[in-house]
């Protein structure tokens, strides 16, 4: 630990945050192994325990050092990086991880398709080998940051003649390549927070394949596992998030209060507080080295409460609940679930039980993997992908 502290001190001594260019500082931090200390030496880390990171972050922040805007590059940090580390080649790691971490290169994720949502393994985007390249054609959807992204992690079907899980390969796709067409996807809130991405004969060099041909499904699990942890694991202060917004609305409108809405609000307040405690307990478990499956409980509860609370808020506001702030189609850089008015909160919360794994899929996962209940009869396991009904 004291070696890490020494490295922090050395970094700060060599690059005074007050006078160093932001990007220069971030690159130096990466090169000092202080980006993500649990990563290998030479790839921004020191092969140290993961829990040594918070002290580094705090020390650097206290010294006025810039951070890498982690929310802006969440997909890169949370999904692309662990996958490339685990399954990429040395060349890929060296090429991609540094600008990913510094934020010089933004990443997005080309996984979901109109016909492959919960059943991602059914995806139909085709990649055909052509010399040293792959030629990719298909349609992806629900891609956030696609319009800002330099790179994408992509899964595509390389063999339609084998069962669906077996014929998928994992790639890194250059979002500036010819044939990549990003179109905003407007949501029920009016915003276009996500995109559709149309891929037409996009050439990807085989050097940008991650893992073996046909191993894409297993590799994608690394990505998705990290996504679910990221979504479920946020800590929050009491009344953080949706419950705080709704409680404030209650406090601001004594004239609208009724006994019935009072008890419903308190019920949801209690559940929100308990979910917050469950999040703290989950982090304590992780810190104690015994991670549990409770992350999926957090995500289920978060979605349900966000929807119930915002629904109550709109109803509570009555004549004000009939109004909306703005239907203009915008492309927000970052999404704040509670940042606009009650109507927006209500509509946006509907997505919480869909994005990052629907609540229905989560319940299946809990039932089978946590509780050990038997799987349903499967009709799609041993059938070549091309013969599946769709």
């Amino acid at each position, binding site marked *: 630990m004291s070696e890490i502290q020494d490295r922090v001190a050395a970094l700060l001594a060599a690059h005074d945050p007050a006078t160093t260019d932001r990007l220069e500082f971030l690159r130096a931090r990466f090169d000092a192994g202080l980006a993500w200390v649990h990563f290998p030496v030479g790839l921004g880390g020191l092969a140290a325990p993961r829990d040594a990171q918070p002290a580094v972050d705090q020390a650097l922040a206290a010294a006025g050092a810039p951070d890498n805007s982690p929310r802006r590059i969440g997909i890169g940090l949370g999904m692309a990086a662990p996958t490339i580390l685990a399954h990429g080649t040395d060349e890929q790691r060296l090429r991609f991880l540094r600008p990913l971490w510094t934020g010089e290169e933004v990443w997005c994720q080309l996984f*979901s398709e*109109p*016909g*492959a*949502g*919960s*059943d991602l393994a*059914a995806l139909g985007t085709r990649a055909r080998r052509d010399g040293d390249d792959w030629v990719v054609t298909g349609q992806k*959807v*629900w891609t956030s940051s696609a319009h800002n992204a330099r790179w994408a992690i992509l899964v595509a079907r390389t063999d339609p003649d084998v069962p669906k899980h077996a014929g998928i390969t994992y790639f890194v796709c250059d979002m500036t390549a010819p044939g990549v067409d990003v179109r905003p*996807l*407007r*949501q*029920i809130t*009016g915003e276009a927070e996500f995109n559709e991405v149309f891929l037409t004969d996009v050439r990807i060099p085989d050097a940008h394949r991650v893992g073996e041909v046909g191993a894409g499904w297993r590799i994608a699990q690394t990505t998705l596992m990290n996504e679910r942890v990221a979504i479920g694991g946020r800590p929050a202060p009491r009344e953080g998030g949706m419950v705080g917004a709704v409680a404030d609305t209650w406090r601001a409108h004594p004239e609208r209060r*009724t*006994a*019935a*809405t009072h008890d419903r609000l308190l019920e949801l307040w209690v559940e929100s507080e308990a979910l917050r405690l469950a999040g703290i307990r989950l982090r304590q478990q992780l810190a104690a080295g015994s991670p549990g499956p409770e992350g999926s409980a957090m995500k289920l509860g978060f979605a349900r409460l966000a*929807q119930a609370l915002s*629904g109550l808020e*709109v*109803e509570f506001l*009555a*004549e*004000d*609940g*009939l*109004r*909306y*702030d*703005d*239907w203009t189609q915008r492309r927000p850089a970052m999404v704040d679930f509670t940042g606009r008015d009650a*109507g927006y909160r*209500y*509509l946006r919360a*509907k*997505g919480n*039980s*869909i994005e990052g794994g*629907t*609540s*229905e899929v989560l*319940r299946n996962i809990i039932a089978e993997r946590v509780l050990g209940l038997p799987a*349903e009869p*499967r*009709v*799609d396991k041993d*059938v070549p992908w091309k013969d*599946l*009904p*769709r």
Partner: protein
Amino acid sequence: MNLLYTDIEDDLRATVADLLRDRAAPATVLARIESGADTALWGELARMGATSLHVSEALGGQGAGYRETAVVAEELGRSVAPVPFLGSAVLATAVLTHLADDPAARALLGRLARGETTAALVVPLSSWEQVPDGRGLVRSVADAAAADVLVVPVAGVVHLVDARDAVVTPVTSLDQTRPIADVDITGAPTTPLAGPGDDAVRAALVAGAGILASEQVGLAQWCLDTTVAYLKERHQFGRPVGSFQALKHRVADLWQSLVVARAAARHAADALTTGVDVDIAVSVAKSLCSTVAVRAAEECVQLHGGIGMTWEHPAHLYLKRAKADEIALGTPGRHRATLAPLVDLPLQSTP
């Protein structure tokens, strides 16, 4: 008490449904969503008599009743067509029929029935029980932007105001298919109507709440039908997703709620027609159907998965209408509070 649809009502439904299928299919509604009320469609509805069903023939209407009006409301709920039916044909018209001894009211009823003009009742759409006063700014008034004549309660008397003389400011509505506006009649010339204004407005709120229950049933039915159709067609894991039992049970529960909600809505429409048991019937129907419609719309969005979150799928129009309807003319909680003394279930005992 007849809770079925009569043959006449079935015919009426078919006629209205045909028109709406042609002129207000969800994709059509979605495409013109920023354009306010569909005045051409509104004119057609008026010409077929669908906007004056519960107005007596003597007053220029169809001489049918609220049962038939409710059937039209159901179909309008099913299509979320952007027409000022609630504001003009239900709320304003109900006030005017109550005050039909006044010649100005009678004259306006005739013009409304002939489709020559459109009216709006100037109260917040969320009003229930209390009659708001129309002086100063009145917020969140349904269908006001489409109205030629404003019907405004002021200090116990209902006044008519030419919309061109008032300040009608459209506001961004959560429910994009029933636009609201803020209205200020300060300084506008007004025509007071003789008769008990507050009683007329209260009766209109009751009628409106009862008719809204039928709109909510139609809306919920669309959500159920559309969801069921999608679940049959959408495949995941090599199966239609509608073959997954958890989803089946959810739509089965929704269907069950809708069976019950429909009975309540029919009872409210029947009670409004006969005048028997009106207050209980309306508050039962409005509180129940509000909840069922919101749940149906929410399940519709969820069970469509990602596509239900997109602007291009019409589900959101129904979600927004359902949520606004829940507030309109009394939230479920306010209707339950209304019921408490009527059914002898008070919170405090009266001494």
